[in-house]
């Protein structure tokens, strides 16, 4: 049984429907990458999982439970974390406090998780008492990742984690995603940089016009001439 299973999802803002039948399934421990042209509904799919818009049809199940239309504040309890594309830190809170807020739903001792996050992102340890709003873009992205990891998620959703970052940071981010995945976290990520992202993906989903257009392993999609011609820029 898959960890995340999305069936025939229709969703949108108000009456305007953007997703018109999305199917997606991820096994535990996989990296799934969602690519596609602008307006295909990539970010919308993530937001739909996260209860941020109206689901009109279809279902989402996670780890055997139905989470269709769940409110976003309850997802942390299911150990699903979401890193939005922008505004993904609390700017006036210190780095340390950002991480603490990530663990808001936890009532147990999470100091070891925090140490673990500092191990993955050493620069954060030096800046732990600085307000997150004063950090550079790449460091803010680390804070956002770290905040998401604080609940020790089973599934982490990343919305264009490399948007607006320099190419050097981009490969660093992908390395981090692989590192996080190796610790057993399932990753679902939306990416503009389709080639690099599909290269690290176990599964790739190419969306177009709110529907699945191709679904295969990352490698197969990269090698598929049709996908390459229409979505990867040749």
């Amino acid at each position, binding site marked *: 049984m898959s960890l995340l299973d999305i069936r025939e999802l229709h969703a949108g803002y108000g009456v305007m429907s953007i997703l018109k039948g999305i199917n997606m399934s991820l096994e535990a421990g996989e990296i799934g990458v969602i690519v596609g042209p602008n307006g295909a509904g990539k970010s919308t799919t993530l937001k739909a999982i996260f209860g941020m818009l109206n689901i009109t049809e279809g279902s989402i199940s996670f780890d055997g439970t139905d989470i269709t239309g769940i409110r*976003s504040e309850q*997802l*942390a309890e299911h150990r699903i974390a*979401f890193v939005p594309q922008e505004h993904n*830190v*609390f700017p*006036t809170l210190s780095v340390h*406090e950002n991480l603490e807020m990530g663990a*808001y739903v936890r009532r147990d001792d999470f100091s070891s998780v925090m140490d673990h996050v500092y191990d993955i992102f050493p620069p954060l340890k030096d800046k732990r008492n600085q307000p997150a709003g004063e950090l550079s873009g790449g460091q803010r992205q680390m804070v956002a990742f770290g905040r998401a990891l604080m609940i020790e998620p089973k599934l982490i959703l990343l919305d264009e984690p490399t948007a607006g970052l320099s190419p050097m940071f981009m490969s660093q981010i992908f390395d981090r995603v692989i590192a996080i995945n190796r610790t057993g976290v399932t990753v679902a990520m939306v990416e503009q940089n389709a080639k690099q992202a599909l290269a690290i993906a176990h599964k790739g989903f190419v969306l177009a016009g709110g529907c699945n257009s191709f679904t295969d392993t990352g490698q197969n999609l990269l090698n598929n001439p049709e996908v390459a011609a229409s979505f990867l820029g040749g």
Partner: protein
Amino acid sequence: MNEIVFFINKGITSGLIIGSIYALGAIGVTLIFGILRFAHFAHGDMMTLGAFVTLILTAALASLGIVLPLPLAFIAMFPAMAITACLAIGLDRVFYKPLRQAGARPVVLVMASVGVTLMLQGLIRLFAGVRSRDMFIEAPKEIFRIPFPGASRPLIITEPQVLLIVFTFVAVIVLHWFLTRSRLGKAMRAVSDNPELARITGINTNHVVWATWIIGGALACAAGTLLSMDVTLKPDLSFNILLPIFAATIVGGIGQPYGAIAGGFLVGFSETLAVFNWAILLRPIKDHLWFEVPANLALVPTQYKLMVPFLILIIVLIYRPTGIFKGRVL
């Protein structure tokens, strides 16, 4: 030296007093503004409401014949703060929460708070009348006269003024501790920073909203009570005190409690120093001045005192809408 004593009594002390009141009010307004995202116009009447709750409790205590080393009103203020906090949560439940849940624009909430302020005003005056009342039921307030070296007149400070300053100081420290050390306090700052992300992170917004109203309501009650203890309890505070409190909030930066404190004192001192008659300080050295000292050298005539917070507000809105502590421009 008498002139300096006069300056301290009329300028510094009253600036400190009124500044503390504004600061206590502005902390609540800035938290509500930052977390619930609307300007709470009912804050002035919430202060009056709190003061009346205190008055009722004080009268009850006095009728029981209780005598304490501190003024009864000050003791009664603490349970009154709890009651006002509950009332604030109740008002939110009945009037603001349904609008929030219906997804109303912030300006609709502002309007609802105007409706609430009128209701409170009407009810308070209906039950208590419009005359002013003395908070010191059992005994007259104590006045401390501290001799000042080299002056024939003493420094004057009254007991409620001392209590106000001490209370403000303690309240600020407790608030600071709460916002930087406690889980809920940090969550409040997080919601104020980024409500969307706070929800995703799993922060319970309801708890944060409650905490906001508890702090806002309790401090409003304290400000109202202490102000009424210093002068008298008059039920016509509302709009006159609202403007300086809003000015303090915006000067300090919206959503910034420390900014609100600084803004409160800034507005309070500007107000008292603007209406202070500086001629008194110049008189002793008038022989050395090249100009004649006029009888009245106040920057602003007393009847236009309200101009001061308004001008501060306008200047901040034009030149630095984020406030001195870099709040948000929502």
